[in-house]
C-alpha cells in the first residue's frame, strides 16, 4: 500500500507492518506506537547516564516542592493567610527584654538591655519595665521550618511558592525558544539566499552579545514581569546559537531524498517545511530547550537579585530582600536567608543542565560512552 505522499514516519510504519496483515491500523495508532517505541528506546539510552538521572531526580524533587505549596496552603499547616502568605504574610516571635539602668548592668544581653538602647524599640520606657521586641528575621522553629525573612515572612513558603514561578518561567522561555529557533532555522535553511544571510547575521549578533547587560538596560526601559521575561529570554536565546545549530540540522535534512520525493510529488513549500523539515529538527530543538531553561532560571534570579524585575516573589527576590536589609554580608549567622534561595537556583539550573547533557548523548550518538 504505497500512497503518493509519505512522510518518513508513515514509511516506517508501513515497513513495520506484518506482510500478511489484513487491514493496516489507522495512522494515528501507528504513530502513537512508533512514538512510544521511540520514547522507550531513548529512555533506555538516557538511563545509562547516571548524571542525567540525577538531574531528572532533582527536577522531580523541585516539581514536588512546587506542588507542595498550594497543598500546604489549602489543606496543610500553612492555611493562615496572615502568617504564611509568601508576599504579605507576617509573623515574628516576641522577645522580652528587661530594661536595666545602664549598659554596665547588662548581665545577659539576650534578655536584658540598657535604657538608652531600649528607647530605639520601646520609646519612653523606663528601667524595670519589659520591652517586647518582635524578632525578625527569626531563626527556624516556631512553626517556620526555615525561619522568617527580615520582613517576618515565612522562608519555606516563599521558597516553595517561587519554585512554581521558576517552572513557569522556564516553560515559557523553553516554548518560545523552540518556536523561534525552529522557525528561524528551518526558514533560513529552506529558502537560503538573502533571507538566510540576514537571519544568520542577526543570529551571530545575538550569539555574541551578553544577555545580562541587554536585559538590564531593557528592564530600565520597560516594566518587565515574569511572562515578558520568559518571552524575552526565549526570543534572544532562540535567535542566537540555537537557531544556528538548528539551521545546519535543517540543511542536512533538506538534501535528504524523502524531501526531494515530496517535492516531486507536488508538495508545497509550506508542506515541506511543516511536514518534513520541522518534525526532523524538533528533537534537537528539545535538547536546546533544556539549556534555555537553565539560562532562564539563573537569569531571572540574577535580575531579581538586582531588583530590576516587577515580580512579587522569586528566589532572586528573597536574596534581594536579604541584601537590601543588610543581612547578606553578615556571615553565615543568618544562613536561612542566604542558603536556601541560592541553593535552589543553583540546583534547579544544574538539574536541567544535567538532563540536557544526557539528552545530548541520546541524540548525538557520537558522544555516547564507548
Amino acid at each position, binding site marked *: 500500500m504505497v500512497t503518493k505522499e509519505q512522510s518518513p514516519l508513515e514509511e516506517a510504519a508501513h515497513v513495520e507492518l506484518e506482510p500478511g496483515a489484513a487491514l493496516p491500523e489507522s495512522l494515528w495508532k501507528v504513530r502513537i506506537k512508533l512514538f512510544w517505541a521511540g520514547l522507550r528506546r531513548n529512555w533506555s539510552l538516557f538511563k545509562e547516564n547516571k548524571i542525567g538521572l540525577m538531574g531528572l531526580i532533582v527536577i522531580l524533587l523541585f516539581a514536588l516542592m512546587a506542588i507542595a505549596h498550594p497543598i500546604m496552603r489549602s489543606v496543610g499547616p500553612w492555611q493562615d493567610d496572615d502568617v504564611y502568605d509568601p508576599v504579605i504574610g507576617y509573623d515574628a516571635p516576641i522577645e522580652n527584654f528587661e530594661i536595666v539602668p545602664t549598659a554596665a548592668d547588662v548581665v545577659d544581653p539576650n534578655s536584658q538591655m540598657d535604657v538608652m538602647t531600649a528607647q530605639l524599640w520601646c520609646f519612653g520606657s523606663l528601667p524595670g519595665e519589659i520591652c517586647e521586641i518582635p524578632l525578625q528575621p527569626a531563626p527556624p522553629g516556631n512553626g517556620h521550618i526555615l525561619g522568617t525573612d527580615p520582613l517576618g515572612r515565612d522562608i519555606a513558603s516563599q521558597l516553595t511558592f517561587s519554585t512554581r514561578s521558576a517552572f513557569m518561567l522556564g516553560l515559557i522561555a523553553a516554548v518560545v525558544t523552540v518556536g523561534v529557533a525552529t522557525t528561524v532555522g528551518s526558514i533560513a535553511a529552506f529558502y537560503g539566499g538573502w533571507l538566510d544571510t540576514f537571519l544568520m547575521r542577526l543570529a551571530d549578533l545575538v550569539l555574541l552579545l551578553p544577555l545580562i547587560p541587554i536585559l538590564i538596560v531593557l528592564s*530600565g526601559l520597560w516594566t518587565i514581569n515574569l511572562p515578558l521575561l520568559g518571552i524575552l529570554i526565549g526570543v534572544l536565546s532562540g535567535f542566537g546559537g540555537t537557531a544556528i545549530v538548528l539551521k545546519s540540522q535543517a540543511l542536512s535534512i533538506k538534501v535528504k531524498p524523502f524531501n526531494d520525493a515530496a517535492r516531486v510529488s507536488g508538495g508545497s513549500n509550506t508542506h515541506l517545511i511543516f511536514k518534513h523539515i520541522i518534525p526532523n529538527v524538533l528533537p534537537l530543538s528539545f535538547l536546546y530547550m533544556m539549556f534555555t531553561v537553565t539560562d532562564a532560571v539563573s537569569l531571572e534570579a540574577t535580575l531579581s537579585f538586582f531588583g530590576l524585575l516587577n515580580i512579587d516573589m522569586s528566589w532572586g527576590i528573597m536574596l534581594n530582600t536579604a541584601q537590601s536589609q543588610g543581612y547578606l554580608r553578615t556571615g553565615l549567622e543568618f544562613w536561612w536567608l542566604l542558603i536556601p534561595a541560592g541553593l535552589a537556583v*543553583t540546583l534547579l539550573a544544574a538539574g536541567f543542565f544535567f538532563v540536557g547533557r544526557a539528552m545530548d548523548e541520546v541524540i548525538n550518538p557520537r558522544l555516547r560512552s564507548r
Partner: protein
Amino acid sequence: MLKFVGRRLVQMAFLFFLFLSLVFFLLQAQPGDITSQFLNPEIPAEVREQIIARLGLDGSIWNQWWNYVTNFFSGNLGVSFSQYPRPVIDVIAERIPRTLFLFSFATLLSYVVGFSLGKRLAWKRGGFSEHAVTIGGVLLYTVFYPWFAVLMILFFASGLGWFPINGFLTPEFWRGAPLTGNEVFSMLLWTISAAALLAGATAIIARRQKERAGARWVRSIGYPATLLLFVGYWVARDEIRPYAWDIVHHSILPITTLALIAFAGVMLLTRGSMLETLKEDYILTAQAKGVPDKDIRDKHAARNALLPVVTSFVLGLAFIIGGGVVTETVFSWPGMGSLLLTATVIEDVPLATGALGFVGVLALFAHLIVDILYAVLDPRIRIQTGN
C-alpha cells in the same frame, strides 16, 4: 593574514552597525518617548518644541536613527543625566580600563586552568575523580552567580580576611598619595601590556628560528628579560608601589571568582574535544612509536583538541562579559558593568545605552581577537580565506 583580518574587521563593523540600530530601536520602542519622560510638563509648548528641535528629535525616525549611529561612531554619546554636564564618553573612558583588566585576567586564568585540567581529565578517563570534577564543574557552571560571589566574599574576605571586602582601592590609604588611582592604574596596565608584548615577541621570534637550539636560546633570554624588566620597574618605583599593590590586592578576589565560573565550561569542553582527538589514528601511531605519554597528551592530542575550545570562546565570551557585570556589581568594582547597572537603576538613559554600546564593542573586539588567534592556530582557516 592581513586580508583575513581586514575582512573580519569589515564584518565586525557591519555587526556593530546592526547592534547600534537594535539599541536605537529599543529606545524608540519604550513606552512614551524621552521628552515626555524628562522634560518638565509645565513648560510652554513652544519652548518644548524648541528643546525637541535642539535635541534633534523633530526629524523622521530614520533621520534620528542615522544621527544616532553616526554620533556613536564619532564618539558623541550625549551627556550623562546623573553626572551632568559630563559627556557619556568621558565616564565610559574612565571605566573601560578597569573592566578590561578584570575581563582579560579572568579570561586568561579560566582558559589556562580549564584547558590544562580538561586535558588531564580526558587522559585519565573514568573513576571517582572524573565524576567529582565533572559534577563540580557543572555546578560551578550553573551556580547562581551573584550568590556564589557573595559566598566567596563571606569566606575569603569576611571570614579569612585575606582580601578586602569590595571596592577598587582603600580610600583612607590613598590620602596624600602622589598620584590618583586612575594614574597608578594606567601605569599598571601599561607595564603589564608591555610585558605581555615582549613575551609575545619572544614567542614569535623563537618560533621563526629554524634550529631548536636557536629557539631555546631566544626563549632563555627573552622570558627572563621580560620578567626582570617588569619586576625592575616596580622595584624602582617604590614611592607608588604600595598604591599599585593596593589596587592589585582589591582585584584578586573578583578576578578569581569570575575565572572560577568561566573555567568550568572550558574544562568540560576540553575534556570532550580531547576524548574525540584521542580516538584519532595519529594518536595510535604515536603510541606505537613509543612516544612518552606526556608528549602524546600535550603535543599530539591537546594541540588538536584546542581548536574547538577556541571556537567555543565566542560563546564563552558573552557568558564571561555578563558574569563581569555581576562581578563588578557584587564586588563594587567601578567598571562598565556596574556603570551599566547603576545608570539603568537611576534612569540615566544616555549613560546606560552608551555603556551597552561599549559592552557590544568589547564583545565584538574580543571576538575579533579570537578569530585571529584561531587563524594563527589552524592553518586551514588561513588557506581557505586566502583563496
